[in-house]
C-alpha cells in the first residue's frame, strides 16, 4: 500500500496532525475517495486545494494520475503563479 505524505498544515487539521498515511489507492481519484472516507472533509480539501507529487512530479487536478506501492506520494498546496 503506498504511503502518502501530507505536508503543510491545511490537511493535517483533518488528520489530527498525522502526516503519513497508508492509503489503498493507485490513482489520485481513489486516493481522494479513500481519504474522505477516513477523514470526512479531507477529500474536498485535497481535491480542490492540493496538488499531488508522485515520485517528484507534480500533478494538479488529475484523477488519472497513477502511482505504485513504492511510489513517493506527497500532497502539497496547489500552485498558482503570476
Amino acid at each position, binding site marked *: 500500500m503506498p504511503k502518502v505524505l501530507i*505536508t503543510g498544515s491545511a490537511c493535517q487539521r483533518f488528520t489530527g496532525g498525522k502526516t503519513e498515511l497508508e492509503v489503498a489507492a493507485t490513482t489520485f481519484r481513489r486516493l481522494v475517495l479513500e481519504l474522505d472516507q477516513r477523514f470526512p472533509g479531507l477529500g474536498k480539501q485535497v481535491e480542490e486545494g492540493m496538488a499531488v507529487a508522485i515520485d517528484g512530479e507534480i500533478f494538479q487536478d488529475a484523477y488519472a494520475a497513477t502511482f505504485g506501492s513504492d511510489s513517493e506520494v506527497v500532497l502539497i*498546496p496547489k500552485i498558482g503563479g503570476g
Partner: protein
Amino acid sequence: MNYITSDLKVVGSRPVRPDGVEKVTGRAQFGADMRMAGMLWGKVLRSPHAHAKILSIDTSKAEKLPGVKAVVTSKDLPHIANEEAFVGEGPMNFRDLSRNCLAWDKALYEGHAVAAVAATSQAIADAAIELIDVKYEVLPHSIDVEDAMADNAAVLHEDLFTAGVDPKPAKPSNIAKVVTFKKGDAEAGFKDADVIVEGRYTTKAVHQAYIEPHACLCSYNADGQVMIYSSSQGHFMVRAYCSKLLGIDLANIRAVPLEIGGGFGGKTLVYLEPVAIALSKKAGRPVKMQMTRDEVFRASGPTSGATVEVKLGAKKDGSIVAVKQVLKYQAGAFPGSPIGPGCMCGFAMYDIPNVDVVGYDVVSNRPKVAAYRAPGAPISSWAVECAMDDLARKLGKDAIELREQNGARNGTKTHYGPTHQNIGFLETLKAAKNHPHWKAPLKPGQGRGIACGFWFNIGGESSAGCHIAEDGTVVATSGNPDIGGSRASIGMMVAEVLGVPAERVRTIIPDTSSIGFSFLTGGSRVTFATGMAATQAAERVVEDLKRRAAQIWEIPVEAVEWKDGKAYPAGSNAGAFEPLDLASLALKAGRTGGPIGSEVSVNAQGAGPGFGAHICDVEVDHETGAVKILRYTAIQDVGKAIHPSYVEGQIQGGATQGIGWALNEEYIYDAKGKMDNSGFLDYRVPVASDVPMIEAVMVEVPNPRHPFGARGVGEVPIIPPMAAVGNAICGATGLRLYDLPMSPPKVRAALDAVAPKLAAE
C-alpha cells in the same frame, strides 16, 4: 511525439514577433480602445477611509443628474455565501471577490469601491459620483503586517478565525491562517551547527505596475446575453468570475480577450467587469469603465509587504545543517496572500536535512493583494539569499561554491515534500561561475552580489487548435491571452510540426465561445501547456493530411510520410507521386473528407521547475545613497527556448522589476492609511536609463514532459534581484541592509550610522 533531440528548423529561431507591427503603430486594440454604439461611461465611487463601517449610501441625487442612466451598489449584486473554489489564480473566495468589487457593510481600504454610476459622458459620471452621499463610521486601521497582527489591532472581519491552529480560536483575528512546513528537527540541527547566521528582513508592498490600467466594455442585452471586452490574463476567468458574482449562466457570457499592456499576475482577477455588467443591466446600454493610474494603485492588488526572519546553521566545512524561517505576509483586505509558495520556495534550491518554516497570512487595510510574478517567492528569497551571502562571508567561502555545495539536484527531497527530478540548478550555478562577469575585476567602492531563485511553474487545462485555410496557410488558435510571447511560441511549435516556415502560421486568441476552455495565463504555463495542446493539434492535422494524400494517391496511409511541409510517398515501392504540399491538399479538402483542422484540450502535467542565478555589480554614491547598477547578468534554466528573444525578454523584464523592488518601489501611506504616492512620478519604477543592458544567459536542461523540452520562464527572473542587489551593496559598503526598498535615504542613513565608527577606526 517528442522533438527534444530532433533537428529543429523553427523552434529555437527568432522570427519577427507576430504582434509587433500593430503595437508599434498604435493599432493594437486594448481595453480602453473599445467602443460600442450607445455606450455609457462608468465610474466608481471609492472610500476615502482606510477602515470604516458604511452606515448608509444615498444615491438619489446622483440618479437625478441628467445624463446618469444607472447607479449601483453591492445591493445590485447577489449576496453570495462564503465559498471558495479554485477557478482563477489560486483559491478564490467569491464572497470576498464580490465584496472587493463593491463593498458590503465596510470599507476595508482607501480606494475600496462603494458605488458606481453609468452616464452619457465621463464628465457627467465624474460629477455623479460626487453626489452620492455615503455615511461612514471611521474605524482604526492597520497597514503593516505586524501592526495588523497585534492584539489591539482593529479586526477587519468579525467572522475570520485563524485557520491552521489547534484548538480553533474563539476570537476573530486579522491572522487568517498559519502554515507550517517541517523536515527533520531544526532545533537539534542548530545545536549541531558550528556557525549560525540570523536576520530579520522586511519588504514593503509593491505594485505590478503594468503600463495599462484596467479597462473593460460590457454589454448586458435584454435577453440576458452578455458581451465582455476586457484586458485580462484569462478571458475564461473573467467569464467564470462574472458568472459567479452575477448569477449568470456561463454559456450566456461571451468574453473577448484584448491586447494586454502588462499583467504580471495583477490581471488574474476582476475589478470592473462585474460592476460594468450590473450597470449595463440596469441602464439597458453597454458600459465602458477604465481605471485611472491613481485608482490602479489605490484599488487594485499589489503584492504583500512582509517581514521574514531567517536563521541558518552550518558546519565549518559549509554544509548547512538546519534552517528556520518565519514569514508574515500582508493579504490586504481579504485573506489570500501567497504565504504558501513563500514558505515553499525560499529553501527549495537547497538540500538541507532540517527545516522549520512557519508562515502567517494576515489581513490589513490595504487593497487585496493579487499575484505578482512568482507570488510569495521573491520576498522569501530576499531573506534566504541575503543570509546565504552572510553565511558565505562568515565561512570565508565563495558565494557560488557554498550554493553548489548545498544545492538541490535530481533526487533531493524538498522541505515541502516532493523529490526534485529533472532540474537544472547546478547547471545554472555552473554557468554563473564560468561566466566572465563573475571574475571581472571591480574598482574600489564597487561591489558584486549573487542570488538565486526557484519557481515551480504549472501546467493545467489548455485548449489550442490548428486549422488549414483553403489556400494552405495555417491559423493556430490559443485559449490564452498573450502576455509574454505565447502567440509566437505556439505558432512556432505548430509550424515545426507541420514543417512550414513560422511566417505561414498566424496565431489568434478566440473568445470564450469560440474555443475550448483554458485556465488563465499565469504560472508560466502557456508555452508549456497550451503549447502542448497546440503541438498535439498540429500532429493530428499531419496524420489527417497523410490520410488525405493516401486517398489521393490510392496507397495505404502507412506508405505516406510527412516532411518539410509536404506529403511524400515513403520509398519507391509506394509509387512515383509528386509531393503534395499544404496548398495542394487544402484545395482538395472537401473531396478528401472536409475542412482540415483539429482542436485539442489537455490538462497538462509535468511542468518542470525553473532555477535562476543573478550576478549584480553596483556602485554606491556615499553622498546621496543612490545605488547604480553597473552590470547585471541573469542566468536561468529555461528547458528549451522556443523563441529565444522572448525568453531573454522575460528574463530581462523580471530582473528589472526585481531591481525596482530592491531599490525604489514602495507604497507610502500617511497617518490615515491613505496612499501618498499613487502615480509613477512618486512610485518609482525603473526606467530604461536606470538599468544597464541585462545579459540573459539561457541554460537549456530540457523538460522531458514537454514535446520540445520547454519549461516556464516568466516568473523565476523576478526572484533573485533583491538579494543580488543587497549582496552587491554589502560587497561595496560592508553594510547589510535588511529593509526594502534600499532607496537613497535608507542607504545614506545606514552609511551615516557607521560613519562615526569608521572615522574612529
